[in-house]
């Protein structure tokens, strides 16, 4: 299969206006992904599916990820004047990452037997601007999976043929897979034999830490 850089430049040449970005993944799996712009996502998807070289005819997996607002810390080296002398000092730079929801798609080719090419695109925020284009018109296999993302994360897929809750019941209000979802605490509690086990484990671990 072509390198991701080559796929990116070919897509940008074929779909006018499309802007892609390569998101690097530094884990040993080395599965880097392509970040799409929402306006051209479906056109890009159809290009990837129909292109004679790639033929990514099979969308194996579609899923959501929640990234709430977070403060990211990063160590940077800056030049500073300390006691009248210019020195390079290490400083902690803090940046605020706004929250967003993300949809991730894993594409393979059944015809050419290669893959995966990973696509991801993001909503503007987690509250009201949570719309993304549906890729179901390109791959039918995304139908139930996008419904699942809608159900559990609250991403609204525009252009989906049948966007309804799939696992939770219709009256359910929240999105249980979001990181800030608060579980209901109205269950009845009864002491169980596991409580004793838990105590034992705590004791055991405390002793281990001491040792």
């Amino acid at each position, binding site marked *: 299969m072509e390198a991701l850089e080559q796929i990116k430049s070919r897509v940008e040449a074929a779909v006018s206006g499309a802007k892609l970005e390569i998101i690097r993944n530094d884990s040993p799996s080395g599965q880097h992904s392509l970040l799409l712009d929402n306006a051209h996502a479906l056109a890009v998807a159809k290009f990837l599916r129909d292109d004679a070289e790639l033929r990514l005819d099979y969308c194996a*997996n579609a*899923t959501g990820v929640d990234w709430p607002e977070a403060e990211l810390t990063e160590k940077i080296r800056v030049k500073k004047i300390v006691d009248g002398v210019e020195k390079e000092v290490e400083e902690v730079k803090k940046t605020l990452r706004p929250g967003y929801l993300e949809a991730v798609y894993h594409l393979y080719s059944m015809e050419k037997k290669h893959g995966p090419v990973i696509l991801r695109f993001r909503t503007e925020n987690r509250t009201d601007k949570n719309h993304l284009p549906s890729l179901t018109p390109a791959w039918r296999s995304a139908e139930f999976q996008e419904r699942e993302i809608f159900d559990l994360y609250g991403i609204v897929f525009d252009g989906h043929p049948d966007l309804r809750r799939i*696992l939770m019941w*219709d009256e359910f209000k929240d999105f249980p897979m979001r990181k800030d979802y608060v579980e209901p605490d109205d269950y009845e509690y009864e002491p169980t034999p596991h409580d004793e086990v838990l105590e034992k484990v705590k004791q055991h671990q405390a002793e281990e830490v001491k040792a």
Partner: protein
Amino acid sequence: MPPKNFELLPKAGAEGDFLEVAMGPQHPSTHGVFRMDVVLDGERVVKLKPVFGYLHRNHEKIAENTTYLGSMPYTDRLDYFCSMTNNWAYALSIEKLAGLAVPERAEYIRVITGELTRLLNHSCLIGFLLQDMGALGTPVMYAFREREKILDLFESLSGSRMMCNYMRFGGCRCDLPAGWIEEAKQVADNFPRFLDEFEKLLCENEILMARTQGVGVLPKELAINAGVTGPMLRASGVNYDIRKVDKYGIYDRFQFRVPLGDHGDTYDRFMIRVLEMHESAKILQQALKDIPSGPIIDPKAKLRGFRPKAGEAYGRIEAPKGELGFYVISDGSPNPYRYRVRPPSLINLTILEDMCLGNMVADVVVILGSVDIVLGEVDR
């Protein structure tokens, strides 16, 4: 109360009267709790919507709140017929994420247990499929007789018959007990005999052929676009087997064929499973002959306090029902930031309506049977 989320067809119009039937959630053919909202014109299906979620436990959320190893036993409960392959798929994705190597002997054990799982899944499926056709009891009993032998092997290996919890990141939990290989060899050698008996009894059975040939046809292009995998895809004539495509584990060392169907109908889906069992038995015989001695887990693999570096990985295997994948994102903490199961049972159902349209209501039961679903995996 009528289901709220199901949009009714226009009431009696030029087309005539329609009847809306909720098949399930408690129906003998739905393999647990699964509902099909079917709209019928006479006995013909004009609309069908699968409804699930009755068994939903949010396995993914549980896994995100526990350690990496802590969710291994939960994977057993996804497709509770095939806990070994579920373990394997999860272990594989974590090995990709953390860059762990698996020792030779463990790879052989994984192939052996994985193929045994395929045998037990397919034989049970055939039993259930015949039960859906009205052959009450007997075929399931024959299938369960074979399954018992495999479960005995799993019990002596892992201590549990169904929820094995046997694989670990970088290998397996424990080594094979004494005499296990000989017993497994016996099962592998005897299995083709059971298959011959099964084939003689069923493959040219008039009722089976009449009820399945030309029923629930799934064309090739539709199957690919709908992400159908496993025996169901290959019955439609698409040569795609992850054991051959990805060559994960040590599958490139074994000689086996990938059987393909011609018509994509229910009969082909039945036959593909029979043929796949022959191939699995062949793989088993080869693996049991060549299994080397040595360690069964990577000594560097840390189980307690396991924290892979930040990153993500998608790992997949050819489970008996199709592509079983795990997508894991790590943020460097002891529990996964995102944990996702790509279940073959759920995605194979995407196309159920298209397969059923125009068929009789009695065929819906058989078509659903040939999809091979387990609700633990559909709902998670």
